[in-house]
């Protein structure tokens, strides 16, 4: 037994959160397909329900297979702990509902996954939580949007799909100067390429459906929290005042740095119910074992494909921050030195019609609404992922009708390039 501080990332991707099962000796993580767990006795049951002990009760609140996934993600992100959720969207919702309630306000980047934009713009507003969307290329505008009822700044490390890069350290410092946490979605970077907690972020969310799983087989999400934010600063009564959902338990007083994650699990996840299936947790754990190897290949292939597209006569523009003329390259080199992920966009000469022909022309690349698969994926955001975003907002987010989003897979890069070249020629 030793502390994981001595083990490097690639080792923790395989071992953190899972030691051999003491009962059976199973070396692989067993799938605990059990809705509920037998108590040792009446006192243990009472202690668990009162949160006086940690243990298994019911798989909506916690499950041993999910716990392995949660701890492994927390270890890789450098956080205090984790909470698995059924999807990235539910992880994000729970991460924010643990901080904010009706009458509160969030400041969010406008460079977001379309589904996230809609969750914040429509569902959060309907719950009474106001949201201001700001272009994070203008830090002064972000600060100006923070009000007395603001509970968090939210952004994606690598924006979907524009490949904008969050200045994590700057916005963490800004958030902390206003006594609020920085919540970062790290889906496109994965902890292999960027660990926002090391730069000051407080809460991390993931759609584990993407690179974490890596095979495009299951939905999943996870929240990781640093344990460093002082939620007793007076701005977070949901954490530091007695909770009516737990016989007036004060989460911060009882659990201090563990309070955010305890409330996220024992109150918000318990009541929202978007628990991750342990079958999915098992597949996500298998995926994590190869995360370092896959991400190395993803960024290597992405850079090669980006350089090919940049020179192609049918390509009008490309937004991948490895080129000197991309405004985000400097931040990308700082926060993602091994490469800014494998998802980016390019514009096709000929606009909407050429985009349709391109999508029809690919054979190896898959036309679907997902990213972060081992397979190369392409999509036309204006007509799919960002369709529900109002046209004006879409334009403000930089999503034009000529835009193609690509998620570069880990196939042989020459085959990816051959397929794209064929489709680009067909688009003319």
């Amino acid at each position: 037994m030793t502390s994981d501080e001595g083990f490097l990332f690639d080792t923790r991707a395989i071992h953190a959160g899972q030691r051999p099962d003491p009962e059976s000796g199973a070396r692989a993580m067993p799938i605990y397909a059990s809705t509920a767990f037998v108590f040792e006795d009446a006192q243990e049951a009472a202690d668990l329900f009162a949160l006086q002990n940690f243990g298994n009760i019911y798989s909506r609140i916690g499950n041993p297979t999910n716990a392995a996934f949660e701890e492994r993600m927390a270890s890789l992100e450098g956080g205090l702990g984790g909470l698995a959720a059924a999807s990235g969207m539910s992880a994000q919702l729970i991460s924010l509902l643990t901080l904010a309630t009706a009458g509160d306000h969030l400041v969010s980047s406008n460079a977001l996954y379309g589904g996230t934009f809609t969750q914040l713009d429509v569902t959060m507003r309907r719950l009474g939580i106001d949201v201001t969307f700001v272009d994070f290329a203008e830090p002064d505008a972000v600060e100006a949007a923070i009000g007395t009822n603001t509970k968090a700044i939210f952004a994606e490390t690598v924006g979907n799909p524009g490949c904008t890069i969050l200045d994590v350290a700057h916005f963490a410092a800004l958030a902390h100067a206003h006594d609020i946490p920085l919540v970062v979605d790290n889906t496109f970077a994965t902890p292999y390429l960027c660990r926002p907690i090391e730069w000051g972020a407080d809460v991390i969310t993931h759609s584990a459906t993407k690179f974490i799983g890596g095979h495009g087989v299951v939905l999943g999400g996870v929240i990781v929290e640093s344990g460093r934010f002082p939620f007793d600063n007076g701005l977070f009564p949901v954490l530091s005042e007695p909770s009516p959902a737990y016989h007036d338990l004060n989460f911060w007083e009882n659990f201090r740095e563990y309070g955010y994650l305890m409330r996220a699990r024992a109150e918000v996840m318990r009541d929202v119910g978007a628990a991750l299936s342990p079958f999915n947790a098992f597949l996500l754990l298998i995926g994590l074992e190869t995360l370092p190897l896959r991400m190395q290949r993803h960024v290597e292939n992405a850079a090669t494909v980006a350089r090919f597209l940049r020179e192609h006569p049918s390509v009008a523009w490309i937004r991948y921050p490895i080129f000197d003329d991309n405004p985000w390259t400097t931040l990308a080199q700082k926060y993602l030195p091994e490469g800014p992920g494998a998802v980016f966009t390019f514009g096709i000469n000929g606009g909407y019609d050429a985009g349709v022909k391109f999508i029809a022309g690919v054979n190896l690349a898959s036309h679907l609404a997902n990213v972060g698969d081992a397979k190369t994926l392409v999509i036309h955001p204006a007509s799919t992922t960002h369709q529900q975003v109002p046209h004006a907002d879409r334009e403000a987010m930089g999503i034009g009708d000529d835009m193609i989003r690509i998620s570069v897979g880990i196939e042989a890069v020459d085959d990816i390039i051959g397929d794209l070249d064929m489709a680009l020629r067909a688009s003319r």
Partner: protein
Amino acid sequence: MSIDLVPDASAVERLRIIQTSQSVALVGVSANAIRASNFVAAYLVRTPFRTYMVNPAYDEVLAKPCYPSLAELPEVPDIVDVFRRPEAIPAVVDEAIAVGAKVVWFQLGLRHDEAARTAVEAGLAVVQDRCLKIEHARFSGRLHLAGFNTSVISSKRRRPI
């Protein structure tokens, strides 16, 4: 340990303390069921530790007798687990040294470097700003079940505690 260093126990030292200790005195424990000290006590009474409640304000906590001071306990506790305000810590440390305890443990949120140095000079081990419940749960696997990062990596089948 150099006297200039702030005394505090590493993860390996905390595990050794938990593995080698058999009795714990909870100084300043509350009888109020929603206070943190009561949560810790409710957890520790369910472990193999022999636990002793210490608080002159109560006769009983969690149906166990509550003692006014460390000197009144039926045995010398291995660990003195402190739930008092920072200004009360030096007196508790003096008391722990006087009865011959092996470890003084300042709970989560509590630090007192001067009192910690006094304890180290007297030969006691010191843990600061940590929760004994959470550290026990870290090595027993309970904390893991709540999704927390225990930092434990091992391919051994048996748990350390």
